[in-house]
């Protein structure tokens, strides 16, 4: 028999058993995303609409490629967690919620993987 009080049950890791992990990851990614996104906006200002050779040349720069790879990782983690929260807030049917959470995780991984490979391919192979 479970002798714990209701308060005892929610203390520590809470009902989802992951504690503040989700909240904390959204916050930490959002903090690193501020400088990364400022760099990204600056990069777009300089290179959006530019010819192929110029853009690839800029993306192949090791510094730019590193920042871009980190930006992809931080954004994908942040957007996946953010969307998880939105789904959990609005979707009340267990089945639909589970399905959407899987779609969200898959979409994030797929887009993240594609972006990362693109960044790395340009960095290593031009």
């Amino acid at each position: 028999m479970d002798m714990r009080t209701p308060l005892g049950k929610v203390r520590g890791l809470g009902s989802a058993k992951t504690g503040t992990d989700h909240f904390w990851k959204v916050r930490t990614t959002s903090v690193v995303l501020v400088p990364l996104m400022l760099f990204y906006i600056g990069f777009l200002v300089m290179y959006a609409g530019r010819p192929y050779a110029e853009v690839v040349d800029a993306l192949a720069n090791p510094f730019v490629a590193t920042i871009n790879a980190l930006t992809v990782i931080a954004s994908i983690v942040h957007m996946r967690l953010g969307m998880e929260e939105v789904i959990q807030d609005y979707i009340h049917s267990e089945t639909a919620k589970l399905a959407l959470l899987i779609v969200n995780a898959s979409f994030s991984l797929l887009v993240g993987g594609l972006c990362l490979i693109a960044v790395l391919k340009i960095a290593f192979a031009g």
Partner: protein
Amino acid sequence: MANVTKNRPLSPHLQVYKFIPTMAMSIMHRITGVALYVGTILVAAWLIAAASGEDYFNQVNDLFGSFLGQVILFGYTWALIHHLVGGLRHIMWDLGYGFEKEFSTMLAKANLVASIALTVLVWAVVLLVR
């Protein structure tokens, strides 16, 4: 034990609240977050095209350069800047500052003004200066 979940008080639904600036910007933060989520497809398309060769890249560039493409990119830029500035307010609150009513209302309004102004500035630099 009694069924706790069934007897919990419900939080009042959204429409019983008066519509105020901080609430509007909270909703905007969520909408722009979801818009950026979808907009990541644009970034991916650009990067993948750049990694796939000149022909693909020119096709994507043409799409982005079309009138509709430019409108969508303008919206994406605004969503990004609005969400970024809103994110700064979140960081401030998470550090424990800025909860005073007048101040947070002022910041909510400033968020919208700043995001529009900065978006126009970014596009002015791209279209006029560069």
